[in-house]
């Protein structure tokens, strides 16, 4: 159990560094999502199932979805912008 906890913590920290260093926004959000999942397992280890279920639903679920739809919207705006320029 102890070893699993340490491994997960190391994974979380590596994820944090990776998020800072990647250039691709999509990749960094996917890393954040996996970090959230690891975090929810850590919460199981810390005997807080309420937090685990909330983190899994919110951190890995809804927050990531919101990030994705934001990125999609930004690409949409960008595409629209390029279309507009091409028409001109």
């Amino acid at each position, binding site marked *: 159990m102890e070893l699993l*906890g340490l491994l997960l913590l190391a994974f979380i920290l590596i994820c*944090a560094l990776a998020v800072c260093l990647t250039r691709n926004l999509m990749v960094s*959000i996917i890393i954040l999502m996996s970090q959230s999942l690891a975090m929810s397992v*850590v919460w199981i280890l810390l005997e807080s199932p309420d937090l685990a279920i909330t983190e899994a639903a919110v*951190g890995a679920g809804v927050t990531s979805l919101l*990030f994705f739809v934001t*990125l999609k919207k930004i690409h949409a705006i960008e595409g629209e912008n390029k279309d507009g320029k091409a028409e001109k």
Partner: protein
Amino acid sequence: MLENLLQTPYETASIILFGIGFTSLMLQKNMIKKIVGFNMMDSAIYLFLAAKGYIDGRKAPIVVNGVTSVEAYINPIPSGLVLTGIVVSVSVTSLMLALTVRLYRRYHTLDIDEITALARKEEP
């Protein structure tokens, strides 16, 4: 100092995570990266709080078989505080993302420095 820290790996990790998150919230230029940093910073604080409530060898605070003695369960207070905190951070994240979409629609960039410069230029 180091011995103490190694005995409390959860708190140590949470503080390092807080440092990384706080720095990226403060110094990253990209809005999305800033928001990601904010999320990491908040989850670091929650990890710290939850670690404070944990007690070795005790179970989650859900009453089983009617046993209600203090020795059976961990401290429920940090869990409650973190639950409240998670709601707050989701709300803030959604607001920040909405702001990002609006900013991008207007200035066509995600770099906050560039956005500030553009805003200065457009209206003196």
